């Protein structure tokens, strides 16, 4: 940091922007992030620390008559870092990454016996600090006691008792931040030696007349059921069922309304804009593109509401505990389950959920696996393809065959994700030490509304901003490719096109469009799978988002027969080669397409998020590459197999 922009005489404690920076540091589950959200409100910005997979949360708050910057450091139990997010804490404390002006140490008052050692090691860094004691209401309720002013005297720093999220505590912290210049610091630094540290902890706790709390009876009673080998497992499955029901059933009506709204808006725009191609562009490319993405917003927002509730209540740690043994089979730990669960809605929140994994290797393995889970964007593609393959009434025993195939696709996604995770962890385990698995099981709490709102606000906002830009650009490009170059009437006449027929004209434009050239250019890659250039356009365009495949095939079919696009799709014939005249969508081609979409990373938004979360292009490139190879191979095998059978 250059100081040339600072005015003469400015203290080095003032940053370039002229704002003081305070970092919140503490153990996981200490209520640190709740406090951070309460202090900074909706001003929270989430980014990444340079070069690592660690999310950086920055916020602002007004104290007195100035604004200060708050930084929520990742929660950690130790300053001996074993994961990248813990390394971030160590780096910030030791000033590698520009040290904060002051630190707010957040400790759960019910676990002081454990966390005072952590506090001691933080204080040894000699950065001005204050201590916030959270959950003091829980401490009291469970028969514990602490004298905060005596603790303050023993430690030599200011101590603020707070019950998380309560206004009074937050205001007191703000007032203390305003008095930054007069913060006290310890007279003698706490000892570093382990044995002396134990003695120091004991003496500090007895000076503060600390009475540790009784075990939480409410939590014990709930856990007797929720972690019971039989009832606990049953409740777990009920919770998961309710989770999926909410994602698909509750979100569906909202999604429909968004679709209806954008269709209406598109029609209005088409009617209002008199220049033909511009009207089509606005209604199909612009509004169609944005609408196609925003349809998934209710699902994403609901998903984050539910995850925030499960997380805030303390059930998520229990779910991870119950699933740990199953996840261990794939070399992962219980917490990775949460991420894979989110991926059923969309791989993007699933990948963002990997931030809770302490091990960078587990995080990468989960990120490589998450895009294989059957996401909601694959659903319309599967429904279309299965619909082309099987009659609606066909049955296998008591089951509907369409439903069976769809279920099989979900199962295929889950199994292959676990397999990939297993392979990825095996590969990475060869280098570096094995991380221990430990997970705090916090007492149950009523989820804080503020935390739920912040989680939804941040993720829904990120979804709309980042994804819309990517998808909007691709849909616009796709529309241009499909509709250009525009042909003159004379040109069409010369080519023998019936210029009195709208259909024949649009078919001619399509067949000679830039998109057709792209489709034909990639033909050598997909020809062994039985795809022709029309399917190839769909595949290329679905790179933007899988559901674009459905829209593209619709556009292609509509160009051939605008009145009956679905029939047109079924009637499409192979144009050349030995099978000329046979239906294009033969069982073998459909099987190949199903496999291709099950495995290929046809989603630039996921690639973008992988880039953002890993901080480099390496991992998205690896994910895209391995998934394409697997997808092509599986599609080829499926097509060959179906051709053998039929």
């Amino acid at each position, binding site marked *: 940091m250059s100081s040339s922009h600072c005015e003469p005489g400015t203290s080095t404690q003032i940053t370039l922007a002229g704002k003081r920076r305070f970092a919140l540091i503490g153990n996981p589950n200490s209520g640190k992030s709740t406090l951070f959200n309460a202090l900074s409100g909706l001003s929270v910005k989430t980014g990444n620390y340079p070069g690592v997979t660690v999310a950086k949360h920055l916020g602002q708050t007004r104290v007195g008559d100035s604004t200060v910057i708050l930084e929520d450091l990742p929660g950690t*139990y*130790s300053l*001996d870092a*074993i994961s990248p997010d813990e390394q971030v804490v160590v780096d910030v404390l030791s000033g590698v990454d520009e040290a904060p002006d002051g630190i707010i140490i957040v400790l*759960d008052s*019910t*676990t*002081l*016996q*454990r966390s005072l*050692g*952590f506090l001691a090691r933080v204080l040894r860094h000699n950065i001005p600090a204050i201590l916030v004691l959270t959950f003091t209401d829980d401490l009291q309720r469970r028969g514990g006691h602490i004298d905060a002013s005596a603790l303050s005297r023993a430690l030599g720093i200011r101590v603020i008792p707070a019950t998380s999220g309560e206004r009074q505590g937050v205001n007191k912290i703000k007032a203390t931040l305003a008095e930054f210049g007069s913060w006290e610091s310890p007279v003698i630094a706490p000892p570093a030696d*382990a044995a002396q540290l*134990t003695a120091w902890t004991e003496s500090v706790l007895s000076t503060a007349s600390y009475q*540790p*709390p009784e*075990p939480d009876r409410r939590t014990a009673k709930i*856990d007797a059921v929720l*972690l019971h*080998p039989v009832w*606990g*497992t049953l409740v777990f499955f009920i919770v998961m069922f309710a989770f999926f029901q909410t994602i698909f059933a509750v979100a569906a009506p909202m999604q429909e309304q968004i679709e209806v709204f954008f269709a209406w808006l598109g029609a209005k725009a088409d009617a209002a804009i008199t220049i033909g191609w511009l009207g089509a562009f606005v209604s199909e490319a612009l509004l169609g593109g944005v609408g196609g993405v925003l349809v998934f917003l209710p699902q994403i927002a609901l998903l984050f509401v539910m995850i925030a509730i499960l997380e805030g209540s303390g059930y998520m*740690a229990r779910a991870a*505990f*119950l699933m*740990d*043994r199953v996840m*261990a089979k794939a070399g992962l730990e219980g917490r990775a389950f949460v991420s894979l669960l989110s991926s059923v809605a969309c791989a993007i929140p699933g990948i963002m959920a990997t931030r809770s994994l302490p091990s960078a290797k587990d995080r990468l393995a989960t990120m490589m696996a998450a895009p294989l889970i059957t996401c909601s964007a694959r659903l319309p593609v599967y429904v279309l393809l299965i619909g082309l393959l099987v009659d609606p009434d066909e049955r296998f025993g008591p089951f509907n065959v369409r439903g069976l195939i769809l279920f099989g696709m979900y199962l295929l996604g889950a199994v292959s994700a676990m397999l990939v995770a297993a392979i990825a962890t095996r590969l990475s385990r060869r280098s570096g*030490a094995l*991380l*221990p*698995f*430990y*997970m*705090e*099981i*916090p007492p149950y709490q009523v989820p804080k509304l503020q935390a739920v709102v912040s989680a939804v606000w941040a993720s829904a906002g990120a979804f709309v901003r980042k994804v819309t830009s990517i998808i909007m650009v691709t849909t616009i490009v796709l529309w241009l490719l499909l509709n250009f170059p525009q042909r003159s009437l004379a040109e069409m006449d010369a080519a023998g096109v019936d210029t009195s027929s709208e259909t024949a004209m649009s078919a001619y434009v399509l067949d000679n469009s830039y998109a057709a050239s792209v489709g034909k250019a990639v033909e050598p890659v997909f020809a062994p799978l039985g795809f022709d250039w029309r399917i190839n356009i769909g595949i290329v365009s679905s790179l933007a988002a899988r559901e674009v495949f459905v829209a593209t095939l619709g556009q292609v079919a509509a160009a051939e027969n605008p009145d009956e696009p679905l029939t047109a799709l079924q009637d499409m014939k192979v144009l050349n080669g030995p099978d000329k005249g046979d239906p294009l969508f033969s069982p073998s081609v459909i099987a190949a397409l199903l496999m291709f979409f099950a495995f290929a990373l046809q989603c630039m938004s996921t690639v973008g998020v992988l880039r953002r979360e890993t901080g480099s292009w390496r991992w998205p490139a690896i994910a895209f590459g391995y998934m394409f190879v697997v997808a092509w191979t599986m599609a080829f095998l499926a097509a060959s197999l179906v051709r053998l059978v039929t």
Partner: protein
Amino acid sequence: MNHAKASLSHVISVLSHTQTQGRFFSRTGRRVDSRDTLDRVETGRTSIVQEIDPQLDPTIHQRLLDLGFTPGTPIQVLRAAPLGDPRIYRLAGYEVALRAQQARHIVVREDS
């Protein structure tokens, strides 16, 4: 005969001593019985941390200390997951889940 038997068992014990030194004897030479590690403590019982396996990787050793598994701390085994592993332990005013793989490195003695 008795004498011969005794010396034979002595030889065996010395042999096994040498063979298993790495695993069953701590650096101080004190015998660490494999029954006395945290993963072997029955669910519901409380025991006291004696030490963390000194052979353990130093970072993981430190991490277990930071999690509160310091010598002298009482630990209660609360419950096991449906398939037996991991288990939840209560110590230092909080609850933490550990896999047997980690609990195996925490040497405990009975709560007296």
